[in-house]
């Protein structure tokens, strides 16, 4: 089910999640779906990884240890090198305040957990193809 040809450079996706099963589940499926995946377990690592690898897109869990997703997003968006990288917020917190806070922090899109791996891929594809940011969409897989 590879979406890109062998010669095409694979898009790099940074998956930030402190819960290993989710992070690895998404990584495996994203790799299965043809993306280069790098992982980070907190906001600090995410910033480091983003600055080092400059990924095409960042999937950001918001509740993170050390540095949370909002803070990390704010810093990435404040950094000239990383500010153009789209950030998709992905959180189990479905309360209204979360998506609002995410947008204020600079997230370009918002997905609520539980989010099935194929839904995430569809969103990444939409974002990378220059589609409109899904920042107002609060609904996950209900």
């Amino acid at each position: 089910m590879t979406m890109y040809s062998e010669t095409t450079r694979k898009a790099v996706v940074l998956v930030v999640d402190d819960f290993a099963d989710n992070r690895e589940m998404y990584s495996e499926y994203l790799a299965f779906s043809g993306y280069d995946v790098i992982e980070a377990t907190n906001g600090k690592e995410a910033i480091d990884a983003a600055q080092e690898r400059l990924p095409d897109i960042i999937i950001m869990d918001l509740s993170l240890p050390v540095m949370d997703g909002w803070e990390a997003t704010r810093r990435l968006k404040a950094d000239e090198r990383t500010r153009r990288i789209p950030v998709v917020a992905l959180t189990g917190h479905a309360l209204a305040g979360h998506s609002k806070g995410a947008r204020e922090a600079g997230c370009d899109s918002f997905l609520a957990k539980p989010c099935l791996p194929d839904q995430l891929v569809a969103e990444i594809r939409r974002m990378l193809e220059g589609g409109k940011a899904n920042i107002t969409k609060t609904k996950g897989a209900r």
Partner: protein
Amino acid sequence: MPALVPTSRSGTESPREAVASARLAFAEILLFSEDPVECARAAVDWLAERGGARKAICALIDAQSGTVQHVSASGVADGQIETLQLALEDPQHPLVFALAGREPVTLAKNGRRNGHSVDPWRGDFLAIPLPLSEKREARQGLLLVSPSRCEPEAKWAAELLGQKIARLRATAAVVEGEHRLQRERELLLNIINASPDPILLTDPEGRMIISNARADALFSTKEGESEGRHRAVTLNNMLFSAALSQQAIDESGAARRELLLVSPSEGSDLLFELLSSVVQHPREGTCVVSILRNVTDLRAATEQIEENYRRLKVAEADVRAERDRLDLIIDSVADPILVTDPSGKILLMNSPAERLFTAPESDETKEAERAVRSNDAHFSSFVSNLFLTGSGLRWRGEISLFDPATLQPLPVEAVAGKVLSEHGEVTAVVTILHDRTEAIEKARLYEQLKAASEQLEEKVREATAELVRRNELLQRQHLELEQASQLKSQFLANMSHEFRTPLNAILGYTSMLLQGVSGEMSGPQKNKMLRVDSNARHLLSIINDILDISRIEAGKMPLHLEEFEMPALISELLAEVEPLTQKSRLQTVTEVHLPVSAVYSDRQKVKQIVLNLLTNAIKFTPQGQVKVTVGADEERRELRISVQDTGIGIAPHDYEKVFEDFRQADNSVTREYGGAGLGLAICRRLAKMLEGRIELQSQVGAGSTFTLVIPRRGKRR
């Protein structure tokens, strides 16, 4: 003296002719003389000159007094005349004798007559009484001549003189009588004129015979007086005549009546009392004497007196009425009232006072009497105190009395007021007694009440403090509860997050396995994996429901009001539940009766509620149909969306239960039909958010109808 006949003639006449001539001369004198004295003088003179007498004396006797009235003498000494005066006092005197007789008496020379000496009359005297024409008794006088030989001439002269004197005296008597009568008449007229009342004598025809000045003023006029006066007099005469003729003069001859006349001088009315009496007039016959008494002033005075009397009566009646009213008022006052004179004597008291100051009649033990006496003493002391110390008009004090009826102490408050006369003297003292028992009792009760009130106040204060304390506690608890609620919501939110994180992994991996990411699975493997997926999704829906409730309760459920088309929403819903209805082979019917299809509300929440009702209906309806009806209550401007099923139904006593959290009508239902039982609880909360409600009609075994009622145009909160 007039002389019609010559007193002397020529000497040629004869002696007889001479005697006749002399007599004629005397007769002539007498004829023309009107004075007895003159006649007596003439007689003496004539006797001396023509009758041949040397001495002649004529004494005239006053018939009434019997004394010598006049003495004329010729040729007699004065002393002799004086003795004549003395002699007449002696009845035995010869002269007196002569005077009493008819015939001449000769007084002899130094002669004696019955032993009396006639010494002064020495000589030859003849005493001839002057005769009266008829009566012998009254002697008019005595003619004394000397010598006695001239008796014939003297007798003749005496006869003539006697007759003349008698005639003159008779005439004088008549004149005197007339004079007296005139005086008496004048006196009488003066008397009647002096009367202030008009007096009239009228003849039988009513003509006035006599009237006094007052009467004249009313009934007669003089020339030159005013016309008004004439008229008044005429009128008065008419009125008077009428009064007399109308008057029934009774047999007694006197009558009284009133007569109204006009004052001729002033023209004012004059009221008279007419007093008439009949008199017999020797010439005129039956006449009427009328006396008019002016009673004008009397009448006015009488009327004034009557008016005064009437006023007095009225005033008296007023006073009596006032007094009666006062008595009534005084008696109606419950407090004893006493009126005393300055000495302390009770003049008046009302019935309540009588109960205190008079002993009851059936007083066997005399205790009541003692109480009354004690009361009297206390009261008297109070009143005398008023005079001793009370300089003002009022005096207030307290007296300890006893009630004679119950013999109980009766403390009273006494208020006394002095009643002053015009001159400022105290005429009476009015005292009002007011029973203080009640006041004292009230004061006692007031004290109790005050104490009780203070206790109560203390209790209230304590209670208030307690209340404040409890309120603080409640507030603290409320705060704690709020915090707990907040914590709960936070906890649920966190729980939801914590649930979602592993569920995300389960659903993700299941999805990946079912997609064959790790290689194709066998049929049975795939089936079991589908069950994992289904249960994971169910768990997710429960978690979502819990999250919804906690969001609503935390007030974090946002409301998005917008305008949308109702029919489109219904179609969308039916499309969503179509897989379910197809699976359960249920018939779905929709009826939309809307005058205006646009609705202003939260579309997503309306959809969530109706979707829940639909899935419930499908879930609890084994067979038959599910009908969705959309209608409007125009009057209440409400929208009604009904979901009617032919399912198992709900018993009336379970109507409320189905809306409670985690409840289904029957626990067995949960096992049979699944679901957390949160759906209707959420629906009801959401409907409330939309200012609406959910109505339920159901019958066990026949089906249920759930109706969402919301305003057609919701208000933004």
